[in-house]
Structure formats: C-alpha cells, structure tokens
C-alpha cells in the first residue's frame, strides 16, 4: 500500500509533465499553424519565390505538421534544439550560456527578495492596520502600477547617471571575477527585487494574517503562551505552505521580469536572446526559448504544489 502522499506527489508531477507536453503543442502550433505563410512572415513581402521555397525546404515546412512537430519534440528530448536561422549557430550551445547568465541574475534577485519579502510581510502582518503596514501597502500599490522597464530606467537614471554609483549597462563575460560580475549586475538585481518584492510581500502578509486570525492561534494565546512561541510553534507550521506558494508564484513571475530587465540593462541573458530573435523572426530560437521559459515556470509551480502537499498535516497523517 503506497502512502497517499506519495501518490499525490507523483500525480502532481505527472500532471505537470502532461501540461508541459500540451504547452509544447501550443508553442509549436502557435508558430507553425497560425494563418499565413511562415516563410513569408520571416522573409517579408518582397521575398522571391526561390528564397521562399529554399526556406520552406530548410525548415521542413513541406512535411505534414504532425511530422514536423514530432521531429521537433524528439530533438528537444535529446537536447537538440536545432540551429538558428539567422546565424546558423547551434541553439543549445548559445542558449545554454545565456540560460546560465539568466539563472545567475535570477538567483541573486531571489536570494535578496525572498527573505526580504518574508520579513517585510511579517512586519506588515504584525502591525496590520498601523503605520508600518500602511506604508508598506502604499509602496506596494505604487510598484505594482509600474512596468519593469520604468522601474529599470528610473533606477538607472538616479543610481547610474545622476549619482554614478553603479554601471548603467550590465555586461558580463567569461573572464570576469565573481566580484566584478556581482558589481555589474547590481542594478538589474535591484530592479528585479523591487518588481517582485511588492507582490511577494503583499501575499505573504495575507497568508500570515489568515493564519494569525485562526481559532487555534487564539487558543494558544488563551493558554498564556508567549507571542514568540505562538508564532514559532502554532502559526509558522501552518503558514509554511501558503508562504512557499507565494514565493514560488513570484519566482515564476521573476521569469517574466527577467526578459524586460535584461533588455533595459543590455544583459546577455536568455530574455534578451528571445526578444532579439522575435524581432528577427528566428522561429527555432523563439520556440526553444519559449519551451525553456515554460518549463521553468511550470517546474516552479509543481514544486510549490508538492511542498504544500508535504506540509499538509491532513495528508501526512491520514485517518
């Protein structure tokens, strides 16, 4: 007899993989099956018949859609993402380098924003309705209303141009020391932190407040237990699942923020790579990037669900 929690986790992961498969169909279909001739869209209206025919041949557009999809998926499963139309490079190689850069940026943004958001969320919950809470929610409202690139340029204008504290462009390359890299990415990290912090804080606050207002926390207070122990022993174990969910949701949100922030600071990451190739209509690259972004996003969501399944006492100790 398998423990029900293992069954649930396996189910959730299987569902996630199924979703990823559906997404691959969506991405492939979105780029290949939309109305209009893909080759025409890539080369423009002035393309010659010969050029169009060559491109169709090169992209395998003459095969049936199902065959093309299967070949593409088969390639992905074997780590072969194809070659870029614009420069003939192997996509997996280019993408790998840039993906590492993006992860580097996202890692530092997450490493700063997650603890900060949880602490500020706790402060806001602790002083709910009082001035620290109002200040925090006011700032939240402002940052939620700002697109990432606006935050980026304001930060750049103030910190890089007016006060010359940080570099305005975040170039990193292989030979750099870690310190030099960190200095280079300080500004984009700051912007990403600002962008995700508000959401994460607001949702953490709501999750904590929800637990703090529950009857069992009142029971603990009526036992004369110290506030520290009430939070540590009674509130926290029950707040873990919702807070982890909040964190994961916002890390997934970070994935989107990264695209724009990389463009603002000319950072050689995957977002910039994707945007460049969308403009050049380099389909294989766009598809590959789309799949990687989707996989990360779905992966984080699965992780969030699995953690909340594991943290649920009702599932851990079935009747």
């Amino acid at each position: 007899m398998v423990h029900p929690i293992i069954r649930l986790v396996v189910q959730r992961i299987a569902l996630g993989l199924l979703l990823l498969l559906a997404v691959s169909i969506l991405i492939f279909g979105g780029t290949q099956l939309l109305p209009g001739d893909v080759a025409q869209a890539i080369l423009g209206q002035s393309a010659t018949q010969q050029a169009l025919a060559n491109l169709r041949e090169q992209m395998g557009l003459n095969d049936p859609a199902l065959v093309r999809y299967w070949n593409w998926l088969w390639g992905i499963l074997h780590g072969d993402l194809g070659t870029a139309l614009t420069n003939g490079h192997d996509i997996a190689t280019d993408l790998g380098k840039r993906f590492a850069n993006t992860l580097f940026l996202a890692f530092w943004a997450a490493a700063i924003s997650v603890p900060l958001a949880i602490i500020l969320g706790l402060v806001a919950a602790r002083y709910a309705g009082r001035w620290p809470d109002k200040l925090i929610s006011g700032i939240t409202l402002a940052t939620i209303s700002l697109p990432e690139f606006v935050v980026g340029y304001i930060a750049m204008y103030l910190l890089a141009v007016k006060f010359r504290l940080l570099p305005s462009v975040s170039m990193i390359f292989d030979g750099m020391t870690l310190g030099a890299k960190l200095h280079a990415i300080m500004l984009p990290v700051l912007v990403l932190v600002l962008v995700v912090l508000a959401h994460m804080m607001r949702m953490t606050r709501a999750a904590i407040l929800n637990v703090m207002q529950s009857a069992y926390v009142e029971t603990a207070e009526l036992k004369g237990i110290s506030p520290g122990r009430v939070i540590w022993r009674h509130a926290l174990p029950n707040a873990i699942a919702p807070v982890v969910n909040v964190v994961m949701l916002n890390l997934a949100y970070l994935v989107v923020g990264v695209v724009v922030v990389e463009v603002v600071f000319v950072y050689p990451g995957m977002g910039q790579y994707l945007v460049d190739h969308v403009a050049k209509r380099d389909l294989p690259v766009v598809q590959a990037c789309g799949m990687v972004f989707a996989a990360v996003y779905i992966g984080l969501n699965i992780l969030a669900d699995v953690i909340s399944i594991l943290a649920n006492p009702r599932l851990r100790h079935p009747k």
Partner: protein
Amino acid sequence: MPDPILSIRNLKIEATVYPPDAPPHDVVIVDGVSLDLQKGKVLGLIGESGAGKSTIGLSAMSYGRGGVRLTGGEVMLNGREIRLANAKALRSLRGREVTYVAQSAAAAFNPALTLMDQVVEATLRHGLATRSEAEARAVKLFRKLGLPDPDNIGKRYPHQVSGGQLQRVMTAMALCPEPSLVVFDEPTTALDVTTQIDVLAAIKEAIHDTGVAALYITHDLAVVAQVSDDIMVLRNGKTVETGVVRQIIDDPHEDYTRALVSVRSIDHEEKAKAEPVLRVDGVTARYSGTSFDVLSDINVDLAPGQTLAVVGESGSGKSTLARVITGLLPPRAGSIHFNGRDLTPDLKSRTKTDLRELQMIYQMADVAMNPRQTVGTIIGRPLEFYFGLRGEAKRKRVQELLDQIEMGKGYIDRYPAELSGGQKQRVCIARALAAKPRLIICDEVTSALDPLVADGILRLLLELQAQENVAYLFITHDLATVKAIADSIAVMFKGKVVRYGSKSEVLAPPFDDYTDLLLSSVPEMRLGWLEEAIAGRRMASAGN
C-alpha cells in the same frame, strides 16, 4: 463565605465598528454586569445572540476578541484585579488559573500538532509539571471524559478524531493545568443531539470531580439547567436576572426569562388522518458519482393542511428527501404523487401549476433571498410569474402578504440586508405563500434563529396553516420543534425511515432503539434530566 474565585463588578465592554457608509464609532456590548463565582460552582450565562455572553466569558481571562475592549468596571480573579493587568501578568494567568473551551474544537486545535502536544502545552509552559507527569494527567483526564483508547489517543492529530471526541479532548486540555476556573463557550452547540448528551455528561462529571469553578455559556436553557448551580440571564449586554437554577426555571421573576423558559411550549392538537395531498412511494436516490443510496425505499404521505415532520441527525438524508420531492434530484426508483397526479421526476418537465403548488422555505434566509432585490420584488415575483399580477394590483397583494406575516407597512422597499434574521425568514414565508401553494417544504427553517424568534416563526406557520389549509413537510433535527407542530412524524436514520406514523403513535412506547436514543437525548428543562437520561442509557446497554 470565602472569597469568590471570580468577581466581576460593573463590567463595561465596548467595540469599534466600521460600517461601510458611516464613520467608525464605538458601541457598548456589555453594560454594568456584575457576578460572583465561588470555588467548585458553575454559573450558566444564557442569552440570545448579541446578548454579550461570550464576551463576558472571555473577560474572565481579560481577553477581547477582535476590536473588543474592556473599558470599565472591575474583574477580580483569585483576589487580583486583572482588567488592567499588563500582557506579562495576563500570560502567566491564562492557561494556569483560567482556561477556555471553545465552541468549535475542530477550529480551535492546531491541525499541525498532535493532540497530546496541545493538551499538555499550557501545563508545561507554565512549569506546573514535568512532561511525563503532565501526560499522565492528560491520560487520566481522557479516561475520565470517556474517550476511547485513552492511552494512545494523544498521539493522534485533530482531524483524525470525531467532533464529539475533539470537544472532550478540549475539555481535558482546559483541565490539565488544574486551573481554578474554566470558561466553557457553547461546548456542545455544534454537536448532534445524540452526541451532545454524552459530552455534556462527561463535562459535568469532570467539573464535579476536579472541583473547578466554571462559567458555562450557552443559548440553550435546557442544557445550562443540567450543568449549572446558578444561572444569569443576559439580554443586549445587560443582566436580566440571576438566580439558582431551580428559581430561574420554576419561578422566573422577569418577563424575558419567563418567555425563554416557556419557549417551545406551543400546544398543537394532532389532526385526524385524511386523503393525502402528497404521497412519496418507494423513493430511492443517490447522488451522481457516488456508489451508495442516500435514500432507500422511502414511503410517507401527508394530508392537506397538516404537517409531516421529518426528523433526523446530520447525514440522515432528510434534506435529500426535499431535493427529490422538488425535482432537483430525480430518484433512482419510486414515484411522487402530488394532488392526485404523478409528479415527473425531473424539475424541468413539471407544469407551472405543479411548481406553483409546491413551494420551499430554506434554513438560511440570508442566502435564500437575492440581496439586490427589494422585499417588494422578492414577494412580488411569484405573483407576477404565476398570476400575471402587475403594477398597483401586485403592490397591493404584496402588502396584504406582508400584513399576513405581521410585518406591516414600510418594508416593501427595503433590501434583505436591512432586516433582522426573523424578518428575513418571514419574507421567505410570504414569498412561498404568494404562490398559493398546497404544500410548503420547510427545510430547518428555525434552526438558524434564536429560540424566541424561532418560536414566533413556528406560531406564524401554524396560524397560516389554519388560514390557508396548506400542508408542511417540515424537515428538522430538533425534536422540540417536532412536538410543537407535527401531525405525523417520520424518523430518519442513515437514509431510511425507521419510524413513521401519527405524532401520538411515534412519540409513544414501545420505541425502536434509534428513536429511543433520539428522544432520550433531547435536553428537557428540568433538574436531574441529564442523570436520568444517562442512567436510562446505561440500563438499556446493560440489558442488551
């Protein structure tokens, strides 16, 4: 006389309210309440919702829920003033000298910790015993409270035990630190009636054996009469009267207390059998996607102008029966005859006349009325829909109906949110009546209401029945209500009718086991009832 454990003088409690369309302001919840509680005594606090009884109970721990503040008077616990005590002093007092048993133990236990961890927590935190001593104490209490497998039940998590058991564990949790005072806040209200009696007896015995003083808060006078020495009757935050149990029950001084005592004393003469308006014939039903029958082979009938009470506990299938009769859940087998015709099983294929003549009233009047419609629209719609009444004629008829439910002028343009609980239920009755039905299904229509308000609704229903000759299928879990209004009774248990007949037949011995259990579990408003009922039960189980 020794000094009281708890002594409250002129207590005043206020709260800040935030109405949507007005500036926030303070309201007085409790005003000038005083009480004394001696060691080993139980004081019952009784009143309807809004009486301030829970708020007073929590003031014994100097605790205000939400924005509630103790703004005046004196609260003395074991000779020390605690109303103005600082947080540290209160912490050393709560969970040591005074403990609390909440209405919903299911919500009051932390789902992430074992029962034992929570039961001994206060004892350990206040340094009253070592862990092994505390656990031994807890097991002893579990045994005393009649919990199954007392040695191991502490290893379980809250969701792994039943509601009645959880309520007993919470009582053990309150008694474990050996406090001088326990506050019981409606500890049995959320339980089924047959579970309530055992928990009640366990609590009473535990209070008696440990010699602890207790405040027992409830809205049910019959319950409080069983466990208390004295009773304080509260209304709108003020004391109505205080006295020993016998005086309050046998010789109440105030009109309000008298009304509370005599509630459910409606005397309803049983009507003779007659040709039925509704016949339920061999109905069996289940919900789609499930594999068991919620109802099996139900046969009952109901004469015009009479009341059939369908009584049972939660999960007995009584509300499902209503869904089958109204056509919301087509039965798997059996048929329903109404007015000499066969009703089609499915709602969609019923004629307008069938729909009109069969009306329904719900438990929660709050959600049974569209909050965006005025009373006039709500009652007027059936008039328009079934009889084509419009304009002035409709408005006139709506007013007639409002007069009939004793609400009079000035309500026709109000929204449901502006009405009290009882008024809302009256509007729902008027809406059903507007269709000129032959049968109204009443689904727990009084169980969300305070006893006096419920009493008024029942009297109104009986009056309307006499005027309009309408039949009621009255679904309820409350036997007192059944006795007050039924002509015939069907007792349901696990999807079957276990006993059915006229009121006098059903309520007269010999009983089947379940009906006996049910009848003997309904608290009666007299001293010694609980002991008799428990003794009767022990005898019955010894006889088996």
